[in-house]
């Protein structure tokens, strides 16, 4: 009987040498006349252990990592194919404390299944949500999503059920489902992990949305920086053609590739881009739910939002509403990034403290120096000082301190960081990526860089001007690009004034 060995083909694992490890395992097994089945799974999201090689044994999957190609011969000598002892042996994957302390829902199949196999997806519970929702009326689907309390995971946290209801209630001959997979925030990679590691779940969620609102066409807008995710999705769409394309709720999905524009993650700019124009933000109203893609009612949700939908039908709406705190229901896949020792994907219910993530999961900084600042929620998110590390991770608690959770990305910096430089970078990034439609963002960001440079040159009087500029950007910009750039700038200024002296 052949032995099943898992070597991730996730982009981060590849960047750490997974292909060479897979090739070495294939070669070594052939040399020894061993019959193995090599599965290229997604990543479990423990990047300090990648490439993480797993072997299926009668008692569960055994993990070895981080494995280099040069380790492979020794692993075979130690009978790792039979779960043998070796310095790289970590134990049973399911028993690793980093995974055991999580509550993975949307991300539970990532790294577990073969993302190329629809059969494997279904063998792990996939497809059940779509099967059940096919027997429901559209309004029943929408009310189940509303009852679950699911809120958009892209960053804005808008209640998903309310958005779907608007599209359902808007009469039109053609409606669309659009997945926003333009995951441009630095420090975020949960969308990428899901698209590469469990793409069928995203397709299933979109198909359920199609049933809910009466749409037959879906688009997934993926950033060009994610070629591996695009390839994985296209392969999954091909493999799911019969599953999604037949029977009631016949649904077609197409991947559209972005072209290196951060602001296309803003939903109306994304629609412009899919329609074939420059990614320039539209004024709202009209809401995309009423007049969206090609002027038709359109459901737009993030990857994790759609991927969270199948479980609402497979396991019941209370799977999310029964977890979390305040009005933040369910789990959020957090991403630990930057200068952090144990970086990766942590899906937990809302309600943990930031400090728990940084130290219990993250193990502190990678450099070994004290953590000084943490940016939560991407380039438009606030920098938090150590004194705010006890903030509870839910939407309400973060709003209360003038910050946001965004898409759950957490970027850690040690005490070598220069916060005035980070504030300058936030303005510069806005200047580079601004679509140019509104003046506060287009001009304000460039003026912001200049004002911070003058502060750095000793003109302390310019700090008042920077605050005034941030106020103009916050209240006068058309979208989050300009209106939220002041979050990192002002939080740096307020919490780390010594760096601006």
């Amino acid at each position, binding site marked *: 009987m052949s032995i099943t060995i898992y070597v991730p083909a996730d982009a981060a694992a590849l960047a750490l040498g997974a292909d060479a490890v897979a090739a070495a395992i294939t070669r070594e097994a052939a040399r020894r006349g061993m019959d193995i089945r090599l599965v290229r799974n997604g990543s479990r999201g423990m990047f300090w252990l990648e490439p993480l090689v797993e072997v299926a044994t009668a008692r569960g999957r055994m993990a070895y990592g981080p494995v280099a190609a040069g380790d492979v011969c020794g692993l075979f000598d130690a009978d790792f194919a039979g779960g043998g002892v070796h310095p790289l042996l970590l134990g049973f994957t399911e028993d690793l404390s980093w995974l055991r302390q999580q509550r993975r829902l949307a991300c539970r199949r990532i790294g577990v299944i073969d993302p190329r196999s629809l059969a494997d997806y279904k063998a792990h519970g996939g497809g059940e949500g779509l099967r059940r929702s096919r027997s429901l009326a559209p309004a029943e689907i929408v009310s189940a999503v509303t009852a679950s309390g699911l809120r958009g995971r892209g960053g804005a946290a808008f209640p998903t059920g309310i958005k779907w209801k608007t599209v359902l209630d808007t009469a039109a001959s053609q409606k669309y489902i659009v997945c926003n997979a333009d995951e441009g925030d630095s*420090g975020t990679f949960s969308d990428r992990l899901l698209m590469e590691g469990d793409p069928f779940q995203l397709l299933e969620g979109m198909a359920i949305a199609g049933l809910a609102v009466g749409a037959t066409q879906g688009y997934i807008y993926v950033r060009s920086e994610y070629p591996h995710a695009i390839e994985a999705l296209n392969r999954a769409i091909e493999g799911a053609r019969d599953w999604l394309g037949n029977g009631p709720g016949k649904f077609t999905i197409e991947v559209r590739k972005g*072209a290196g524009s951060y602001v296309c993650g803003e939903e109306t700019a994304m629609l412009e881009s899919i329609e074939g124009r420059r990614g320039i933000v539209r004024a709202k109203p009209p809401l995309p739910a009423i007049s969206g893609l090609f002027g038709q009612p359109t459901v737009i949700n993030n990857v994790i939002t759609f991927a969270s939908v199948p479980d609402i039908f497979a396991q019941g709406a209370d799977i999310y509403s029964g977890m979390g705190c305040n009005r933040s229901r369910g789990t959020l896949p957090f991403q630990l990034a930057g200068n952090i020792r144990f970086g990766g994907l942590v899906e937990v219910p809302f309600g943990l403290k930031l400090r728990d993530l940084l130290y219990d999961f993250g193990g502190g900084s990678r450099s070994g120096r004290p953590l000084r600042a943490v940016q939560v929620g991407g380039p438009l998110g606030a920098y938090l000082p150590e004194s705010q590390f006890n903030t509870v991770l839910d939407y309400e608690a973060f709003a209360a301190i003038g910050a946001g959770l965004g898409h759950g990305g957490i*970027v850690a910096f040690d005490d070598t960081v220069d916060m005035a430089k980070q504030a300058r970078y936030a303005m510069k990034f806005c200047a580079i990526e601004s679509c140019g439609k509104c003046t506060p963002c287009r001009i304000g960001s460039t003026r912001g860089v200049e004002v911070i440079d003058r502060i750095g040159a000793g003109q302390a009087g310019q700090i008042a001007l920077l605050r005034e500029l941030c106020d103009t950007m916050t209240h006068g910009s058309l979208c989050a690009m300009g209106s939220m750039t002041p979050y990192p700038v002002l939080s740096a200024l307020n919490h780390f004034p010594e760096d601006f002296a």
Partner: protein
Amino acid sequence: MENLPAIERTIEAIVAAKQSLPGALLPILHEIQDGLGYIPSESVPRIAKALNLSRAEVHGVITYYQHFRQIPPGRHVLRVCCAEACQAVGGEALAEHARLRLQGSDLTLEPVYCLGLCACGPALQIDETTLHARVTPQKFDALVDALEVDP
């Protein structure tokens, strides 16, 4: 310029195959750049005519998106991540090292804002096919050395 007709044939074939897609412009531009390495100026009037757009509109889209380029790139394109998560682990020093190392080289260096490898930066992408994590200046030099001897 002797290969011009071949380029034109490629452009014509791509435009003909994609022009009926809803929102066909970006898919057309991607396929041209994937095939030729850049978007030649002679493609602009052809795309404009096929999609019933003005040449200014097509030009505007090509120049708006950082991904599209109007001139052929070097033998290989190296993208160094310049976003916050990589900054936190020495990304800026790597970007500056790369700039100095590749001066006068026939390899193209471009900034990129996030490759989604934020827990194992600094990150580097070569030709949209190969990724490298935890890149130090030494590791960067070794990779560039290999690209320079490899034709």
